[in-house]
């Protein structure tokens, strides 16, 4: 039996860019591709180019630990992530592509009394928002994930966990390729090795983008460049409240199934699942300083391993096979920015930081709406740039303190 | 009335040919903040028997050990019961200085013997080679996961100043790391 599902025979072609498009999407990651797909599908807008500086979906989309959940604290967040989760639930059929979406549940562990309070708070908030959520005691955690060490004798014992049964993981690359293929089939141009080097603005309105493949005129320019958002926005004179950091992840060799769910622990900075092939996929916290280097520092990995073994003694003799990093853009309130900018026709989708993979279909849906209507969808309206001026932040690190 | 109790009172010293680890409790420690170019700095130096070391990462030893902690900060360390605070205050007069008794803030662990460098290298990222970190050098740095002040003495000796609340952790860590350099059975390993 082959563990790679049969891919379709044709994914996408590589056309030369036209001189002009109705919509140019900057960045061919998951978000850019999903946006293009929903522009075509929901709004019939197909004169669209997705410009990608490297290989398609080779940014954070190729690097994330693929955790999908919607159990965020604030109503605004729950709204958009739950919308995304509902889309995930039908995405394989919608795209006609195997994306290995596995609703194996996500546990968020609590290790201190304050963790417990915050977790319970989030569970209750989730329920009011119609998001499935449970609070589990240590024994129940053990039932769902028998390999978690729930002994009270460890340095930071597991006092309980929140559990979202509908949460899970998907195969990141296939998700990207599924969106790409479907978008390309509807006429969207996917253009690789095409870096946007400037955004042309005249009279307060966007005109075109400059790229390594020449100038491309556009009615609307929609940024979806994740870690590079500030660099691109700056060329249009738009400043964004984001900072770019490396975020590392690693995998083990392939192992027989041991880990049935997804476990995240913010307090000890570990999150881990076992991918369908059998590798343990694991991540930690961001490297603290700004960097575009797509590599992190090694002590972060070492610390992560000691934390991982506290929770999962059974991992002791597994091996780290590969480490890597993505570069993520982090906002002051750990929530994204999706909406308009001061430049007419220039839209921005950024600041998903360490947790935007799960939003892919949801943000694609809402961003496409924003592009098509020139106004945000109600689900992304709270995530405007203005919130930093008014102070109406959607602060997801304060109480929830759960990244990814 | 109960005795004074040092943070590592319950810790059994290690004493082997190659490696010795013991607490030196109850030393007098004064945190001194003063502009090194000021008159007060000079006067304090006179009172302590040697100018305040201004080369980063060095210490002097006269009436007391004076460890460079920062460009305007020193840790003055004297024998148990030595009223250094009064000496320094008197020398400083009314100048703008910061003088704070921190005697119980940190305790001191002596790590001595030819294996001391090997032991510390398990948890300290500094280059401790005698050419680089020989007698008279000191540094604030990390040892394992605790912040420490490290001072090199003659004969492969080190003084490790550690915050009292971390002392138990650090002692456990040192013993665990030391096991390799000690005769079998010296340390009951955890």
């Amino acid at each position: 039996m082959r563990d790679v599902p049969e891919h379709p025979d044709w994914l996408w072609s590589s056309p030369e860019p036209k001189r002009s498009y109705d919509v140019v999407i900057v960045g061919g990651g998951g978000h850019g591709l999903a946006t293009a797909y929903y522009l075509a599908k929901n709004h019939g807008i197909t004169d669209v180019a997705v410009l990608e500086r490297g290989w398609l979906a080779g940014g954070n989309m190729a690097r994330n630990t693929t955790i999908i959940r919607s159990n965020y604290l604030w109503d605004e967040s729950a709204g958009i992530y739950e919308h995304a989760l509902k889309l995930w639930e039908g995405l394989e059929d919608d795209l006609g592509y195997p994306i290995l979406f596995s609703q194996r549940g996500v546990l968020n562990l609590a290790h201190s009394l304050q963790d417990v309070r915050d977790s319970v708070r989030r569970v209750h908030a989730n329920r009011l928002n119609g998001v499935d959520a449970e609070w589990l005691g240590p024994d129940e955690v053990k039932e769902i994930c028998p390999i978690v060490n729930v002994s009270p004798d460890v340095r930071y014992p597991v006092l309980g966990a929140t559990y979202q049964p509908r949460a899970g993981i998907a195969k990141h690359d296939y998700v990207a390729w599924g969106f790409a293929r479907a978008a390309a089939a509807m006429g969207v141009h996917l253009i690789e090795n095409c870096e946007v080097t400037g955004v042309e603005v005249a009279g307060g309105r966007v005109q075109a983008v400059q790229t390594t493949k020449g100038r491309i005129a556009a009615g609307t320019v929609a940024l979806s460049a994740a870690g590079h958002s500030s660099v691109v926005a700056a060329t249009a004179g738009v400043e964004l409240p984001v900072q770019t950091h490396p975020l590392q992840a690693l995998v083990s060799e392939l192992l027989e199934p041991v880990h049935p769910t997804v476990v995240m622990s913010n307090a000890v900075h570990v999150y881990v699942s076992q991918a369908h092939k059998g590798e343990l996929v694991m991540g930690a916290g961001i490297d603290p300083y700004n960097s575009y280097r797509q590599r992190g520092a090694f002590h972060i990995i070492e610390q992560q391993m000691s934390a991982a073994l506290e929770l999962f003694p059974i991992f002791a003799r597994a091996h780290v096979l590969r480490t890597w990093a993505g570069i993520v853009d982090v906002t002051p309130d750990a929530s994204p920015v999706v909406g308009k900018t001061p430049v007419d026709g220039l839209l921005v989708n950024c600041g998903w930081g360490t947790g935007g993979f799960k939003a892919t279909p949801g943000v694609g849906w809402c961003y496409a709406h924003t592009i098509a209507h020139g106004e945000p969808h109600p689900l992304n309206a709270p995530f405007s740039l203005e919130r930093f001026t008014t102070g109406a932040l959607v602060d997801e690190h304060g109480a929830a303190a759960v990244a990814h | 009335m109960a005795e004074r109790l040092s943070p590592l009172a319950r810790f059994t010293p290690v004493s082997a040919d190659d490696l010795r680890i013991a607490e030196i409790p109850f030393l007098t420690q004064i945190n001194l903040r003063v502009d090194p170019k000021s008159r007060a700095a000079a006067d304090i130096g006179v009172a302590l028997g040697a100018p305040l070391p201004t080369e980063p990462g060095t210490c002097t030893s006269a009436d007391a050990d004076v460890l460079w902690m920062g460009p305007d900060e020193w840790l003055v360390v004297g024998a148990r019961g030595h009223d250094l605070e009064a000496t320094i205050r008197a020398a400083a007069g009314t100048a703008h200085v910061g003088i704070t008794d921190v005697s119980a803030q940190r305790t001191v662990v002596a790590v001595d013997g030819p294996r001391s460098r090997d032991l510390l290298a398990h948890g300290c990222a500094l280059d401790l080679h005698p050419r680089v970190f020989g007698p008279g050098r000191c540094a604030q740095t990390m040892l394992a996961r605790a912040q420490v002040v490290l001072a090199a003495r003659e004969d492969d000796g080190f003084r490790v100043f550690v915050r009292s609340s971390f002392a138990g952790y650090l002692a456990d860590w040192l013993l665990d790391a030391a096991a390799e350099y000690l005769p079998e059975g010296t340390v009951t390993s955890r």
Partner: protein
Amino acid sequence: MLLIPCPWCGPRDEAEFHYGGQAHVAYPENPAALSDEEWARYLFFRDNPKGRFAERWNHTAGCRRWFNAVRNTATNEIEAGEVTA
């Protein structure tokens, strides 16, 4: 593990430092006189260049001094001679 040149202690491992973000962002002279936009700019907006970046570091596990350095965020190289106490 970057080797960060503390102007006082010399080069030390990155783990001894706390990152302070962009340098030279002064606290506004008179915050009360700022518009909400200007105040938001001070609070939340920092440069995020790919390339040379003047930034602040605090040698928390060492001398506890803040200092500025110019680092290239594309390569992580800290420019020699650009570290100021």
